[in-house]
């Protein structure tokens, strides 16, 4: 039996949702028929609107898809202005204020507290500035990710931006690919640093050389079926295909169509392409692609550059794009650390100004929730780095600030088990004050996800934290499972979950103790990931040692049972009414 979601999708889905969305926006939220709410909220996702959780009825998260994390000159200001005007709700975040933008782990932007009645005005402003929310959520081609400094990066093998732009233009709004069995996450990387994180996407194009008619040509190897969600993480699998840049849309379209036709529409939990690859194996996947979905002979895989990957690998250079880096054209890109990816609206607007003043006005977003200002000439670098804003969004932050990633969590998300972003800010600040890493260790990644959906990509961090609960002195409190030693690179590895259910107020102490053991027992120059690698789970569990410290956690209670965790009266009964239409 097909699911209701599939039934709704077969009735109305894709582009046509827009006219309904606008009608409801005009006629009022209340005009969504009572017995069609589930259906419409499911469909609205396709246009980037996700109903916020229980207690926040009638408010939406809005996701803006910025392909490859690329914001053209002026676009960040537009985002800031929209956040300022429309992303204010009944709740104030004690750290980030009333209005803010979230830079996400898939190089997109999220705003919260959006009201349906404002959607047409927001869309108009976005679209007249070349931005869009189309397919930002829902069962279709999501925001395409890659190395955000494509085209500028001194380290790149091939500029992937023209490929990404073409894929985006082809598959956004294409009716043949608008209704897939599940979300479809694509990564295209042209640099040798691995910063596109292809391994954790449904479909990955990674730089590779192939000898074609006697000549070495640069193109892409293809991998399929990565993803972190549920307790079923997978790395994308090599299907032994190399493709020339101009053929990428054909191959990507073929694979997307293969998924459309063969993915499991009976069971959404089994629908992601990772499960199809499990079932078929890479050989059958390739055969089917060749026989039914492309009309030219596929090349076998070329020579990749995976050995050179550094991004999120837990050792070596360039684990992220923070700091000053030289561009091909002799100017610089400057990666600024945004703790947990959230930036207050005044700062967003100021950053837009600075990007214009010192660079070309462009801003880019990385998969580590950071921002990058590009095209800064050497002569202006010093002044730029001296700007006040950069004290807070540093190009040279503490490893604990730099390594922090957190998802949305109980503040807005239905799936969540615990509070995340603000907690990660508190953790990072405490660790910065209280813990020293060995001198030669400059990066330490801690990723916090509120549930197993893994939006913060916890499984590929040095320390992975995932929402749980436990009892402490008889009281139910928020807790975190702790995993260790994950990372990408030539040989990617998921973190091993070694310690379960640590009460949240004991987590900073646990990390401090772990780092102390690491510092004391590591071999000369050994990375944390390598250190974890040579210990078994039991030994690691013993290293974690949860402990109370002077860290205090104000959000120990069940924050999901509040209407908003930071409200003075946070009880569900105090939830605001659905916003009136105005």
């Amino acid at each position, binding site marked *: 039996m097909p699911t*209701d*979601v599939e039934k709704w999708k077969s009735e109305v889905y894709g582009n046509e949702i827009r006219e309904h969305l606008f009608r409801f926006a005009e006629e009022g939220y209340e005009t969504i028929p*009572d017995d069609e709410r*589930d259906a419409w909220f499911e469909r609205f996702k396709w246009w980037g609107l996700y109903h916020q959780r229980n207690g926040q009825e009638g408010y939406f998260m809005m996701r803006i898809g910025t392909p490859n994390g690329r914001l053209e000159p002026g676009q960040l200001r537009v985002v800031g202005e929209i956040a300022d005007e429309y992303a204010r709700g009944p709740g104030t975040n004690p750290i980030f204020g009333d209005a803010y933008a979230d830079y996400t782990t898939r190089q997109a932007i999220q705003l919260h507290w959006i009201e349906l009645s404002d959607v047409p005005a927001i869309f108009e402003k976005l679209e007249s500035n070349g931005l869009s929310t189309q397919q930002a959520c829902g069962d279709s081609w999501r925001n395409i990710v890659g190395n955000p400094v494509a085209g500028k990066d001194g380290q790149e093998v091939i500029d992937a931006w023209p490929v990404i732009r073409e894929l985006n233009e082809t598959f956004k709004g294409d009716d043949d690919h608008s209704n897939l069995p599940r979300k479809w996450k694509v990564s295209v990387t042209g640099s040798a640093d691995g910063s596109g994180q292809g391994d954790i996407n449904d479909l990955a194009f990674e730089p590779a050389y192939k000898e074609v008619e006697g000549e070495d040509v640069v193109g892409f190897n293809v991998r399929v079926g990565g993803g972190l969600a549920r307790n079923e993480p997978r790395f994308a699998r090599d299907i032994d295909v190399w493709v020339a840049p101009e053929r990428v849309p054909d191959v990507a379209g073929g694979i997307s169509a293969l998924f459309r036709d063969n993915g499991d529409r009976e069971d959404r939990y089994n629908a992601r392409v990772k499960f199809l690859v499990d079932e078929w194996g890479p050989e059958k996947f390739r055969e089917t692609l060749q026989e039914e979905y492309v009309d030219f002979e596929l090349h076998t895989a070329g020579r990749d550059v995976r050995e050179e990957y550094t991004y999120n690998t837990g050792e070596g250079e360039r684990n992220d794009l923070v700091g000053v880096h030289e561009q091909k054209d002799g100017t610089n890109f400057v990666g600024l650390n945004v703790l947990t990816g959230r930036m207050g609206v005044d700062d967003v607007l100021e950053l837009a100004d600075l990007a214009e003043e010192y660079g070309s006005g462009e801003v880019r977003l990385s998969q580590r929730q950071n921002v990058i200002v590009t095209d800064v000439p050497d002569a202006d670098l010093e002044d730029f780095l001296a700007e006040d804003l950069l004290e807070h969004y540093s190009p040279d932050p503490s490893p604990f600030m730099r390594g922090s990633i957190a998802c949305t969590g109980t503040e807005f998300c239905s799936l*969540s*088990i*615990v509070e995340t972003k603000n907690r990660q800010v508190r953790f990072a600040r405490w660790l910065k004050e209280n813990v020293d890493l060995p001198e030669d260790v400059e990066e330490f990644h801690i990723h916090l996800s509120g549930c197993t*959906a893994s939006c913060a990509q916890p499984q590929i961090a040095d320390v992975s934290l995932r929402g749980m609960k436990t009892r402490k002195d008889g009281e139910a409190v928020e807790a975190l499972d702790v995993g260790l030693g994950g990372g990408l690179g030539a040989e990617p590895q998921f973190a091993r979950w070694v310690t*379960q259910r640590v009460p949240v107020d004991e987590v900073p102490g646990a990390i401090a103790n772990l780092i102390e053991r690491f510092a004391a027992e590591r071999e000369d120059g050994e990375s944390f990931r390598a250190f974890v690698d040579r210990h078994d789970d039991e030994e690691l569990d013993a290293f974690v040692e949860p402990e109370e410290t002077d860290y205090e956690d104000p959000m120990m209670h069940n924050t999901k*049972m509040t209407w908003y965790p930071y409200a003075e009266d946070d009880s569900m009964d105090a939830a605001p009414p659905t916003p009136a239409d105005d």
Partner: protein
Amino acid sequence: MTAVRDGVLRCVRPDVTTRLRILDDGAWLSVDDTRRVSVSELWRLESADFCECDLADLVVENLLETGVEGRTVQVRAYGQCIACGAKSTTGWVPVGRVVDGEFVDIDREGVLTSTSDR
């Protein structure tokens, strides 16, 4: 996790239709297009086979399936007992009742009893 259904319609009685669905990857139970039960609830669960505890202390991580027995709305859930650490799937757990076409919560802070059939 097995036998998961995301958004399959169930009817309580032929004459009064109550729409029951699990949505958003098992995040919540929708009854007549209203969110009623959410993941992250903590249930004291009496169950012969969820775990070794007499009373499981269960964090609900995913709602898997919903159905009705008479007028009782029930779900099967995936989660973890925080007393013993067992991760498993429950039998049918009653979460509410349909009274005069309206959903009324069963007190889920009290002890809940699940059927043993999985």
